[in-house]
């Protein structure tokens, strides 16, 4: 008996919720991005698990996971560049201190 599909889904759900907590509760913008990575990975676990359990011959699940990884890389690059840019102007990366539209 191998692992049932539901175990993967529960694990991914738990990971997603931890990520959600991180995004909403942390003050540091970099820490928020870290938590977003956790959420994206939870989605990837689901995609690959569905691919393997439901339609292993059709590669859609894996293709989606590949594209999610590519988008995550792009998101991190731009997100971190934004944070560095903000830090240069405001000298802070705490999300609750960056509350002005224009300075």
């Amino acid at each position: 008996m191998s692992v049932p599909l539901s175990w993967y889904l529960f694990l991914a759900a738990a990971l997603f919720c931890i990520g959600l907590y991180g995004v909403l509760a942390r003050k540091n913008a970099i820490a928020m991005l870290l938590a977003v990575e956790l959420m994206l990975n939870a989605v990837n676990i689901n995609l690959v698990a569905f691919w393997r359990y439901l339609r292993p011959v059709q590669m859609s699940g894996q293709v989606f996971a590949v594209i999610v990884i590519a988008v995550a890389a792009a998101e991190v690059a731009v997100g971190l560049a934004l944070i560095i840019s903000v830090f240069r102007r405001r000298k802070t990366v705490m999300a609750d201190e960056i509350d002005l539209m224009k300075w």
Partner: protein
Amino acid sequence: MTAERIVFILTAIFLLASALKVVTSRMLMHAALWLVAALFGVAVLFAMLQASFLAVAQVVVYIGAIAILFIFTDMLTRKDLRDQGQQTRSNWWLPALLGLLLLVGLSSIILGIPGVDRTFTALPEGFDPVRSLGIALVSPDAYVLPFEVASVLLLAALVGAVYLAGVFKKD
């Protein structure tokens, strides 16, 4: 209890523990390193699901590039890396409650899916997932367009990141 289930449970405990450390560590550097551990756990899960390409790509892209990028940004945006004080908002219990509620909701949905307790069958004889993934990514009747768009997106992100983070002196 088969070997596969034991490996899954160990990986899951490791993954969730590192994920919790990611969102609770006071030092951002530690959070980034725990993220590496969590992503490694995800790679193990991919390997267990026989998605060998994704398992290795996960290590190359996430640990080799994204985690290093986080560590660098962490170092570039503060003078003292020993973060002090409260790292979460004062009303942190609200997101925690929301996360728990979402977990309960998702769990009830998962339990309601028909056939969720299925286990997977062996891959068809002579079927190579890596080869099929490669063909699917570049074949015109499959996913060549999303694949190309993703690469253009990456290029655009690269240029954008350089523009945003770079310092251009006017002379």
